[in-house]
Every structure is written in C-alpha cells, then in structure tokens.
C-alpha cells in the first residue's frame, strides 16, 4: 500500500496549475448552478464539491456525439479514420460513483468481445484522480449498490478532504506519475475513516428480478413515466448508441450518438415493427438492464447509486425507488408462494 501524501488546501490550486502545464486537467466547475467537468484554465479559484457532481463524466470518455470516421468530396466519399486525441489528461475530483461508472464502461467497451478503440484511447490517456466524498447527497444511495463514498476502485490516485489538508495516495503506477511535487509531502498520518449510513433503496437479487419479467407490475411502475430519455443520458452506465452519417456542405462524418431505450424509436425495426411499443416494456428494459441483465453479462449490476436519474427526472420520479418497489413486490410474491403449500398441507 502506497503511503499517504498531504497537501495544504491553499496549495492545491498551485499544484493543479503546475499539473496543467504538462497535462490537460479536467476539474469540476459550477456552470449555471450545476457542477460539471471542464478543462482547468486557472481563471477561477479551484473549488471541489464534497458530494455528487451533477453531470456525469461519461461524456469525457464516450461523448454524446463523437466522430469515428470522416468523408468528403475529395476522397470520393470513402471513409477516413479519425485521428485520436493523444494528449495525456488528468481528471481530478471525480467521486467513487463516477469511477464505478468507468469501471462498468470498461467492462462493456474493453473487456467484451468487441473492443472500442476510441474509448480505449480515451481511457489510456487519462489519469483518474478521485476525491472521496465527505458526505452523501440527498439522492445518493451508493451504499445500497456495493459501494461506499470512500471506495477507490478504478481510480489511479485517490485523495481525501480533511480539515486543512488533502491526503493523496497513488493506487496505480499511472497514478505515481503525478505524485512527484514539492507541494505533496509524504506522511505517516492518514485520514480518519468514516461510517456511512445505509442508503434508502435496497434491492433484490438479479435472479429475482429476472423472474419479474412477465409480472403485471410494470404497468404500475410506468404509469406516469413520460418515457423521455433524460435518465439514460444522465446515467453514468447507460452506453447505448446509434451510428449515423452526417453531411454538411461537401464533407461529412460518421458519428456515434447516444441513444436511449426509453424512446420509442429505439426498438423500431425496418418495416415498422416495434418490440417495445408500450412505456411499460421500455421501463422494464431499463430497470432490468440496470439490476439484472448487466449482472448476468458483466458480473456486476450497473447502477452505481449516484442518484443522477432522480435529479434530472422531469417528474421528479425516483428510478431507484422504482427498483425498491419492485423488490417489495418480489418479497410479496415470495410470501404468497411459501404460504400456498402450508395451507394445502392442512387440507
């Protein structure tokens, strides 16, 4: 285990400025009242949120719209691969749920049969410097999803905000590269460990979820859902995309664009058939994808408990609450099932 290094809070800005000379440094910033990641330019004082960052960093690895190839008139419309961005970068101040989201995206894009080279490149050029949360936000429920606000998996460097100090510790060889600085001093002390309360939305197991596939409860769960796509866009682990060719005045790009299973057009096939025409079937797809399919395919449920879907929902509906309601229903069903044989025995 690498040793802790501490840095005075007032020195952090200087340290980051120094890093920014060599690297592209991304930090959370407040834009229109929302925290989102942006490139550090030294124009503003560094301020790091203690809890959830409103906009997930999915966009930094798997952008909303990314060109994968270009074509133009001169090349007779043949596809030219896009040259990837190589400049090394640091993402500083991400939280454990963000790191967990990246861990899941790695599984999808890098550890499956088909590897996404663009994603791989983004991943390789990035050092993740995670900040452990000091508190849990209103909608946070990572403790229900096998994480805690101080989990460090997938991070290259982790740091803790405590009193007047930040405690840094490198976790990978990649992370060591940014630890040599006059501002960081090795220390034998370490941050204190926190106790975290359990979240509000505990859920049943993936196998139990799968058994609910044909249940009538989906109609109840989707009753007022608008089936807009915003929860999937805000989600750090929703990675569906579609491929489109876009042309503008003599040149064009082949792009991947985020898609959402909540939209009706998502499952529409040639000839107009649609396998998920009702809101209930679309809500079922997303719920089961988060809590069951992902587990069956990648060995881990894909909900990280960040709570962004609750924050963005136009109707302020809670997706995890929906999972919790479903689990409740599973338990009810279980009870009914165990009851029946007992009664039949008496007869």
């Amino acid at each position, binding site marked *: 285990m690498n040793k802790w290094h501490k840095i005075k809070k007032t020195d952090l800005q200087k340290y980051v400025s120094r890093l920014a000379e060599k690297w592209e440094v991304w930090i959370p910033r407040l834009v*229109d009242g929302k925290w989102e990641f942006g490139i550090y330019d030294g124009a503003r004082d560094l301020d790091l949120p203690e809890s959830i960052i409103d906009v997930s960093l999915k966009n930094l690895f798997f952008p*909303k*719209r990314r060109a994968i190839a270009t074509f133009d008139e001169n090349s007779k419309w043949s596809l030219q691969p896009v040259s990837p961005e190589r400049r090394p970068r640091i993402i500083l101040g991400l939280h454990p749920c963000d790191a967990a989201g990246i861990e899941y995206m790695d599984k999808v894009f890098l550890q499956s049969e088909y590897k996404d080279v663009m994603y791989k490149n983004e991943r390789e050029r990035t050092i993740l410097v995670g900040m452990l949360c000091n508190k849990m936000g209103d909608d946070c429920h990572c403790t229900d999803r096998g994480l805690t606000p101080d989990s460090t998996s997938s991070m290259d460097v982790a740091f803790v905000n405590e009193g007047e100090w930040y405690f840094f510790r490198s976790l990978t060889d990649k992370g060591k590269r940014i630890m040599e600085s006059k501002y960081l001093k090795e220390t034998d002390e370490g941050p204190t460990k926190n106790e975290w309360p359990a979240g509000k939305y505990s859920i049943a197991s993936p196998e139990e979820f799968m058994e609910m596939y044909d249940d009538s409860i989906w109609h109840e769960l989707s*009753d*007022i859902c*608008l*089936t*807009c*796509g*915003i929860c999937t*866009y*805000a989600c750090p682990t929703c990675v569906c995309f*579609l491929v*489109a060719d*876009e042309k*503008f005045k003599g040149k064009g790009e082949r*792009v991947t*664009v*985020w*898609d*959402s299973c909540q*939209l*009706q*057009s998502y499952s*529409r096939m040639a000839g107009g058939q649609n396998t998920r025409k009702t809101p209930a079937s679309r809500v079922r797809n997303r719920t089961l994808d988060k809590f069951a399919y992902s587990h069956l395919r990648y060995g881990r449920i894909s909900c990280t408990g960040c709570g962004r879907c609750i924050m*963005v929902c*136009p*109707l*302020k*509906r*809670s997706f995890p*609450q929906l999972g919790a309601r479903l689990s409740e229903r599973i338990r009810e069903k279980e009870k009914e099932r165990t009851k029946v044989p007992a009664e039949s025995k008496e007869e």
Partner: protein
Amino acid sequence: MKELRKKIKELFENGEVDAVLGYREDPATGGVKAAVFKKDETLDDMVFDGRCIQNLVNYLPTLVARYRKVGVVLKGCDGRSLVTQLVEHRISKSQIIALGIGCEGVEIDGREAEKCGDCATHMSPVADYEFGEKEEKKEPTFARVEEIEKMSPVERWKFFADYFAKCERCYACRQICPSCYCEICIADQQEPKWIEPSAKLSANTMWHLIRAYHLAGRCADCGECERVCPQDIPLRLLNNALEKAVHEMFGVRPGTVPEEVPPLVVLNKDDPDRILEGKNE
C-alpha cells in the same frame, strides 16, 4: 377541495365515472403526483393546491381507452389543453367529465410559475362542474415575446443558439406535450431524415423549429415543455411567439373556444397576402 371530493364521490356512486384523474399527495417527495382514483378508493389524499402544476390531459388518451368514462381535474390552462384534444378528435367529450377548478396560480420550486403571471384562463373553458373562484378573463400580454421582438435578428439568433446548443434531445418536451402525439415523430423518422439524431446545434435547431411549428395554432400554452426541460430551454417562448402570431393573423387563440378548429388545418380565401410579408397592418 371538500366540494370536489364530495362531487367525485357522488359521481362514483351514481356510476357516472369509472376513474378520476387527479393529484395525489406523495409523501416520499413531499410533492404531489398524478394519480388515477378508482371507485371505492380513498379520496383523502387527493389534493389540489399550488404544487399541482402538471398537466393531466397528457394521460387522458390512454385512460379513455381503458375506462368507459373518466373524470379529470382541470386547471384553466389544462382545460385549454383538453379543448385542443377535443377539437382534434383525439378524445371524445362523451367519455370525459371535466372538473374545472378556479386556479389561483401554481408554483415551481415554491415560486409562482412564470406562465401564471400572464394567465388569461383561470377556469377551464370546458367544465361539467366548476369549483372555486372564477376570475375575470383578461388578455395575455406576451411580455417575454415582445422583449425578444425588440432585438435585432443577430441578437435573437445568439439568444436562441445558446439555448439550442444545450439541448440534449431527450425529448421530454415532446413526451409531456398533449398535442405531440404523432405515431412516428418526425424526429424519429428514418426516410427522409429531416432531423439528424445527434445533439449538435444544426440538428437541435431543426428540432426546435419543427416542434414549435407543429404546435402553431394548437399549443394551448400549458408550459409543460419548458418546465420539464432539463436544460431550461425557453420552449414556451417559441410557442408563445406563434400563439401571438396566429392570434394576430387569424384571430384564433387555441383552446379558449370549444369547437374552434385549429387555424392551420382550415383555409380562408380572404386571408390578406400581406401576412406573407410578415406584416400585420
């Protein structure tokens, strides 16, 4: 509220309605949520107050398919929405019992909603039963639209481009709109592909222009699109601009007069040619 509950109970007992669409207290969030009340269900947690901003008309088409007769709690603006649905024959009035409530304004995050400041219909234009105060009608001022109209074209485009660029194309505005009900939305249409799927300025501009245009003369200004927009794009502004234009050119204010046909589906041989020049006088 008491009267409303009493009336609903009465309607259930007489078998006049099978379900009532209203607002229910939601203890989990401290807000209210849309809910369907059925016979023999308690009405105690039914509410109507400033938090009841959601337009319920959007849920009606699915409900009338399921129930013979549906009661619906309507604010003034929702009533206008209902009228637009009735004139387009999406819902038949024979299946609806409209419970109009004299609305004193609704709020977003504890502050009065912007649409309420300019509200001209406190009571639903269609109501089988009316509850509460009925305020006097007045003309909307379109102050926000006029502010934009004072700007030069370049300023206007800058104003809107900044917003359009932010759009994520989640289509919440489309999904919540009672008047957006195409079987296949033009944004989802594959051939011809008028609107590219990616969230970039040009495609977003197409989407917002088309959305606004398709609602011209049909939008009843319930303001739900703007409320649900996660990027706070002033969608109501576009709708209002066209509402104003349609009123100036054709003298129609959508949703205020029951049975009035949307102006863009009918023709009038006497329309003056000057409207093509963008002039009113």
